[in-house]
């Protein structure tokens, strides 16, 4: 309804200004549509904001009203009993519980009427606000009125608001990570966490045994992450880079038009699909072929996870590198060719050095993607925190351990739960550093061939 009204007011504003211009025969300041927009924005924005605030706060207000009502009716109930009764009333209101007593009926009716009053109140208030803002705006419309810059300001402000949401959310997440991590380090020494060689958080479940030394040593799981990521990069960097070079420098447009989208389809496959591909196809294959040459692979191995993860990030590297290589100016290719270099010499000596910053940042981006990957590792590499560099053994990764830590019931402030935050924070720091590094590299070399 509000939307409809604002539509109407848009056209009303347009007509109004047309008529005034016609009557007063002065050239208008802003175009008709700005006057229309000015009116409709003034109509809709205040009441939308009001509604949002109301919806956010009214349940709390009604709740406390209900609470005090219960308290007054049954003065001998304890606080806990009041809360229980309150949730009973709300459930009964929603129709989940039957209304089984007179008091209950009274309370439900009270709750019901409070809600109705609140809704009606909201409608009236927002209508009043809308109308008054609308009249205010209507009153200000003149032929020489600067509606254009007013509308522009409103739009600018709403964009600032939108970007603030993203920034504030990020800051909030980081802050909560930091706070919980600090809590964790109050229980476990930071040196034990960073340099401990044993990871077995399960023991900390029992209150009397909170974290013996080394139990939260993060080294094994970070080694696991590094091992898997390294294997993945060994697969993805050469394949991704070579296919990017082929696509951008050698392939005919027709082949490129088919091959590039196909490569990018790889990026669209959900990681859980990669995960069971790794666990059900690649890992057994590796174990069998390993057995045939006398190597003993465990059925969950870092190798299987790394291989599949490598395949997963190939499109990331190839697609980004391809864009970067394409951005190298054609004039450099021609200059090199005119000197009599072969195509591969041009690629090696001119194109790759010029595209290097972009390629490096593509690789770093892929790296942080690989570090953050969870599903493949859970399914293919296992959850046992072995301290090993042997790719044939089962290892685990940081992300996997976070999942493991948070599954199941435990107190929120137990060391086990907090450890998840500490791991997440460490991981965040690592990927943040990688991102900063890639931005730095790109910025340092960006203008090289411009």
């Amino acid at each position: 309804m509000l939307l409809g009204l604002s539509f109407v007011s848009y056209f009303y504003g347009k007509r109004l200004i047309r008529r005034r211009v016609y009557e007063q025969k002065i050239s208008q300041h802003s175009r008709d549509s700005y006057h229309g927009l000015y009116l409709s924005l003034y109509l809709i924005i205040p009441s939308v904001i009001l509604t949002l605030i109301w919806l956010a706060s009214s349940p709390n207000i009604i709740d406390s009203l209900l609470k005090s009502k219960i308290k007054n009716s049954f003065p001998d109930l304890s606080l806990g009993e009041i809360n229980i009764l309150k949730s009973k009333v709300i459930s009964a209101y929603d129709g989940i519980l039957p209304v089984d007593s007179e008091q209950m009926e009274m309370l439900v009716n009270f709750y019901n009427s409070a809600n109705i009053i609140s809704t009606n109140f909201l409608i009236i208030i927002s209508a009043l606000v809308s109308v008054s803002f609308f009249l205010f705006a209507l009153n200000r419309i003149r032929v020489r009125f600067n509606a254009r810059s007013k509308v522009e300001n409103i739009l600018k402000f709403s964009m600032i608001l939108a970007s603030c949401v993203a920034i504030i959310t990020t800051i909030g997440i980081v802050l909560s990570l930091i706070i919980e991590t600090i809590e964790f380090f109050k229980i476990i020494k930071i040196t034990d966490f960073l340099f401990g060689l044993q990871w077995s958080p399960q023991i900390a479940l029992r209150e009397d045994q909170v974290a013996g030394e080394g139990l939260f040593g993060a080294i094994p799981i970070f080694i696991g992450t590094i091992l898997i990521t390294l294997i993945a990069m060994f697969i993805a960097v050469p394949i991704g880079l070579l296919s990017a070079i082929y696509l951008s420098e050698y392939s005919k447009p027709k082949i490129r038009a088919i091959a590039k989208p196909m490569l990018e389809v790889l990026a669209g496959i959900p990681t859980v699909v990669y995960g069971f591909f790794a666990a059900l196809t690649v890992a057994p294959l590796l174990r069998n072929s390993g057995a045939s040459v006398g190597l003993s692979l465990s059925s969950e191995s870092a190798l299987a996870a790394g291989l599949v993860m490598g395949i997963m990030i190939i499109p990331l590297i190839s697609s980004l590198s391809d864009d970067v290589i394409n951005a190298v100016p054609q004039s450099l290719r021609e200059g090199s060719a005119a000197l009599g270099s072969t195509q591969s010499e041009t690629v090696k000596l001119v194109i790759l050095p010029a595209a290097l910053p972009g390629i490096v940042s593509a690789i770093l981006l892929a790296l942080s993607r690989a570090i953050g990957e969870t599903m493949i590792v859970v399914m293919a590499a296992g959850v046992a925190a072995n301290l090993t560099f042997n790719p044939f053994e089962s290892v685990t990764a940081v992300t996997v351990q976070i999942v493991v830590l948070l599954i199941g019931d435990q107190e929120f402030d137990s060391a086990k739960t907090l450890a998840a935050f500490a791991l997440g924070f460490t991981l965040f720091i690592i990927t943040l550093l990688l991102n900063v590094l890639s931005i730095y590299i790109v910025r340092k070399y960006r203008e090289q061939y411009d």
Partner: protein
Amino acid sequence: MKDVGSMIPNQYKITTSNVNVDYGSKRALHDINLQIEEKEVTALIGPSGCGKSTFIRCLNRMNDLIEGCKVEGKIMIDDVDINSSDTDIVELRARIGMVFQKPNPFPKSIYDNVAYGPRIHGIAKSNEDLDNIVMKSLKRAGLWNEVEDRLDASGLSLSGGQQQRLCIARAIAVNPDILLMDEPCSALDPIATAVIEELINELKERYTIVIVTHSMQQAARLSEKTAYFHLGKMIEYDVTSNIFTNPKHEMTEAYISGRIG
């Protein structure tokens, strides 16, 4: 137009006969017949889109790099057909230097820019040899005095005119015998242009130079022969002074007197 080339063979450095170029279905050049003398400057003039750049790019087969571009006809350089299948394109381009419209130094040091060609062709026997080639090329391109103390600086740190001379040095470092110049001064100011023109005058003692230019004064100042192109056809080709003082074709006259183009 008289066809002097067919009478006495071997006299011309470059002879093209019936060269046609198509971009996809669009014909860019129609039956170009042109003879270019050794160690002379030949200028190609004409309005934009007339095919003079396309023609110059035929001479070192740069059009191969363009998707959908087809070159027909015979182009003989030193009596060898460069479009035949046994022509080694790498060897061909090593013999024919090219300078482009926009200076395009590699994002490398000044030294590495000049040394690029000699390195890939293995011209230098030793490091001192390479140093020598770089120095000689930079001197010949008139850039040595300005950069001798900063050979490690990026080629892109130079001014536009210096970059273009760096590109000339890069081209002559491979020791070509033909230099193709595709509007080498169009991105430069008059002072840098004067420096490059002076350089071209010196270079023609050693190299056969084909230059595409938009400036008729430049063609008049620099070249021995001038060809006028219009809409993919060569309208007139003659000794430069004839073209500018006594053009035989009315379109040439219209162009040089500023009525078209």
